[in-house]
């Protein structure tokens, strides 16, 4: 065990897998010598050489196009998109290419070895273009896996599993947590399962569901609710696609209530998919409507960032409304 923050856990996972597998290559804007603008790829070029860890020109569509080709050749690319907000120039390469490569070729070729890492999320005074949470844009795209860790331990185990998984994975890192705290992370190799939600806290009155940095928010809200005597079950979805509907449904059948929290705008956010699925699976168990506590349906503002955020207070109030329904 070592104390690591989330960035160090990511860096450690990359070193772990690069030491084992020569085919792993890490690249993106500024990831080479400099180690990335957040320093997630620090020292990789020094340790593994310029051939395996390198800067690319400034072109996200190029980075992912290149990565798709590299993956289909049999290498194991771990491509970084500097901010989640800048992943959209690569949207075509991801949605029309990465995700459909295997299907269209009848399984002859695939981008299964590809992992795309990108920091996402707000709360860092980043305004419109350094705060977005784009997971839902990709969750509508069959063929991709989407994974979001909530802390350093989860980050290392999920990233190792993502890189080794034989499917393309979009690995979204909650950048507000990068240096927020350190926790115990095993120095040895381990994996955490993809497609499996994690019950962070058991409870009986309501299920609170989220991912990434919002788990902290749910925990704070649950504490506030506990003072009112409300017992919350907290689930970290961890994988957005494919997602673990079974664990969520089981929890909701127990608690009878569901609240989903994410930072992205509400309309068309991934909470809508969860709500639509769970109202179907748990129709007779639901004691109140499924609540969504999300970002507003606006671009991510700067001056009003605090007001925009689906924070613990909004969550706590929604818990109360749901229980009173």
């Amino acid at each position, binding site marked *: 065990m070592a104390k690591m923050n989330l960035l160090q856990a990511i860096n450690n996972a990359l070193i772990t897998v690069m030491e084992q597998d020569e*085919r792993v*290559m890490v690249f993106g804007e500024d990831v080479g010598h400099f180690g990335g603008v957040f320093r997630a790829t620090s020292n990789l070029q020094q340790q593994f050489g310029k*051939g*395996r860890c*390198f800067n*690319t*020109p400034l*072109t996200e*569509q*190029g980075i*992912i*196009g*290149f*990565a*798709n*080709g*590299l*993956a*289909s*050749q*049999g*290498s194991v*690319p771990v491509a970084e998109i500097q901010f989640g907000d800048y992943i959209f*120039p690569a949207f*075509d*390469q991801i949605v*029309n*290419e990465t995700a*459909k*490569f*295997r*299907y*269209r*070729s*009848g*399984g*002859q*070729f*695939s981008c*299964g070895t590809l992992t795309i890492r990108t920091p996402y999320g707000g709360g860092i005074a980043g305004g419109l273009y350094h705060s977005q949470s784009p997971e839902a844009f990709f969750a509508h795209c*069959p*063929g991709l*896996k989407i994974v979001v860790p909530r802390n350093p331990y989860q980050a290392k185990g999920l990233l190792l599993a993502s890189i080794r*998984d*034989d*499917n393309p994975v979009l690995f979204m890192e909650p950048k507000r947590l990068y240096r927020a705290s350190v926790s115990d992370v095993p120095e040895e190799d381990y994996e955490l399962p993809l*497609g499996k939600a994690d019950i962070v806290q058991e409870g009986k009155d309501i299920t609170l569901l989220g991912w990434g940095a919002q788990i902290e928010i749910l925990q704070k809200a649950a504490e506030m609710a506990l003072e009112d005597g409300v017992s919350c079950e907290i689930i970290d979805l961890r994988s957005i696609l*494919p997602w673990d*509907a*079974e664990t969520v449904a089981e929890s909701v059948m127990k608690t009878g209530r569901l609240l989903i929290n994410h930072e992205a705008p509400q309309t068309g956010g991934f909470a809508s998919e969860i709500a639509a699925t769970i109202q179907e699976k748990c129709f007779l168990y639901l004691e109140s409507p499924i609540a969504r506590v999300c970002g507003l349906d606006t671009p991510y503002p700067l001056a009003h960032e605090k007001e925009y955020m689906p924070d613990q207070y909004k969550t706590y109030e929604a818990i109360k409304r749901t229980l009173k329904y």
Partner: protein
Amino acid sequence: MQDRNHLARVSTTHKVHVIENGLIDIPMLQILQPDGSVHKEAVAPELDQDTATKMYNTMAYIRVLDERMVAAQRQGRISFYLASTGEEAAAVGSAAALSDDDMIMSQYREQGALAYRGYTTEQFMNQMFSNEKDPNKGRQMPIHYGDKPLNFMTISSPLGTQIPQASGYAYGQKMAGKDAVTICYFGEGAASEGDFHAGLNMAAVLNCPAIFFCRNNGYAISTPADEQFAGDGIASRGLGYGIKTIRVDGNDILAVYAATKLAREIALKDECPVLIEAMTYRLAAHSTSDDPTGYRSREEEDKWRAKDPIQRMEKWLESKGWFDEKAAQKLLDKTRQDVLAAVKQAEKIDVPPIEDIVNDVYSEVPWHLKDQLEQLKSHIRQYPDVYPKTSGRIK
């Protein structure tokens, strides 16, 4: 720390110099004269009779295949086809200069390259009829071939996406120590996509052994080249990326062969990309969905019909004493019959089983797709007549 000097190569001037079109001459390599004889300043590439014959036969084969499949589409037997008439030399001449280990990433009009690699009439048909023998499992429209054993990447309709992919593939080949390159074909239209820029620039900076082969055939559907770009073709862009560039007469198979052979040598030896621009003309309609009479003249087409690449090679073969007219005629007849037989055969073969609707989305079928498949199957069982292609085979 290394000092960087991005002015290292720059000289100064004290009057405003405007750099513009026409400053650099990018000539087009032509080895065969239109009459099939070798230009006196030119040296024909070394080609043995077998290879030359294979090249010729492949072009002749593709001409017939295209003709027949356009007809099959008109008869409603397939939904779509896309011919390469007039451009056969570009695909075949370049493919002939490659090694079988080289990866081919094509746009969609390079059936000649695939045939040269050994794809059979039956294989072409299986793809076009989306039957269960198509290794791509019938998922894409006709002409989206792909074959792993032949190192021919499955074609994807979105234009230009294969260009940065080729850079990545070539980089992987280099890192894996392979003695192989990636060739990437695309049209002058596709070269307008952002992916072209990204792919070529990355290949240059990251030293990828890739050959970027542009078929400049004058049109992107109805859009003529002069509404596509204002520079000196696509070749003039090579300089901007610092990529070695060759322009070649795309209707001269010897020139295409020579250029590609050299490009491959450079790419491997110098670990760098090479750009080839093949000047040719899309004599065919864009596809069976298109009618070019709406946007170009018969006269224009005729000028290019006169530059036919197959006839040009034929004359050269004749001059070498390598052309056997009878054999050639026999091949044409046989191909026509083969294609017809293969069509009949392929259309009888079932579509892939219904399970393939959810296979290959992921490496394994996840829970939600298992559910969706089960629901679908029981639905088909309930309405067998509505889904005749699959209902008979569901247990």
